[in-house]
């Protein structure tokens, strides 16, 4: 398989898009380590990945906490090795109109969704540079480009991730390391299941495909970007949104 012998680290792999990404990469033969914020979450990831060709496992990591990142990466190094593939997927929302947005809502989202990408990417680069092969894939969002009322914090973080990714791509491309973003639109996850019928209806009006996306449809693009076939694709943001926004 195409990712045989590769070690992949996927943050936020308990459910939704992260879970599908972990499954996709494991299906391609990678040893996948998935992160969760709780022991129970880490255990469920281990169960999900137990049946893979190269069984992976879950670990506890709070990506908004530098010490937790360090401890988690140590566990990855000891139990698996240096990651060849990093998927920064973990993210949170703290939605509110800017006039009501609290400092904590801003900093929580920036720390979890943007600063974590900086910390984790920096930490894995050394191993990737040595291996002369690496893939950093950041899960952005359609709203990074579009904007969205109630999400100034989230949109700032995701647009930040895209700019970060372009710079990183330029820094590391002559080491065989690519950095790209995948920007999902409305995907059928716990996050969108919370919406009521009216919100759902108005969402459908702006999605030409007329349906929500599946987590697997995002994961498939991540799987491509992780593969050798995508070695010349770097600094790019690939939209997966059923046509609602085309950058």
């Amino acid at each position, binding site marked *: 398989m195409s990712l045989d012998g590769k070690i992949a680290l996927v943050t936020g792999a308990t459910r939704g898009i992260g879970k599908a990404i972990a499954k996709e990469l494991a299906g391609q033969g990678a040893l996948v380590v998935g992160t969760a914020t709780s022991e129970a979450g880490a255990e469920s990831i281990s169960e999900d990945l137990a049946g893979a060709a190269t069984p992976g496992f879950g670990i506890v990591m709070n990506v908004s906490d530098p010490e937790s990142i360090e401890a988690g990466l140590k566990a990855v190094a000891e139990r698996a090795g240096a990651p060849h593939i990093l998927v920064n997927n973990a993210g949170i929302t703290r939605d509110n109109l800017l006039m009501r947005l609290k400092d904590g809502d801003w900093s929580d989202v920036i720390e979890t969704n943007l600063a974590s990408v900086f910390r984790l990417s920096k930490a894995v680069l*050394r191993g990737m*540079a040595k291996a002369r092969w690496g893939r950093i894939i950041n899960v952005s969002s359609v709203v990074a480009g579009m904007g969205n009322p109630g999400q100034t914090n989230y949109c700032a973080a995701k647009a930040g991730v895209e700019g970060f990714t372009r710079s990183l791509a330029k820094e*590391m491309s*002559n*080491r065989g390391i690519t950095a790209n973003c995948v920007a999902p639109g409305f995907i059928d996850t716990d996050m969108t299941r919370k919406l009521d019928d009216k919100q759902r209806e108005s969402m459908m009006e702006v999605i030409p495909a007329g349906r929500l996306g599946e987590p697997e449809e995002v994961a498939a693009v991540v799987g491509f970007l992780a593969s050798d076939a995508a070695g010349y694709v770097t600094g790019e943001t690939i939209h997966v949104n059923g046509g609602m926004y085309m950058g």
Partner: protein
Amino acid sequence: MSTVEERVKKIVCEQLGVKESEVQSTSSFVEDLGADSLDTVELVMALEEEFETEIPDEEAEKLASVQDAIDYIVAHT
């Protein structure tokens, strides 16, 4: 046991992909051995690993030649 000089030169060869005969103590990483900015960062990291030491960024910036690196290692390990 190899000397510090031998070990430093070996790492320089590995990191910068140059032949041992090209590496003199006076060689400048950038001007003589063709290192780019990323090469020099990687070189410092490789030296840190080999000699089990931490080279602070402000010190690392001053290491322009093979001899600079040897002198630093000798003084700090």
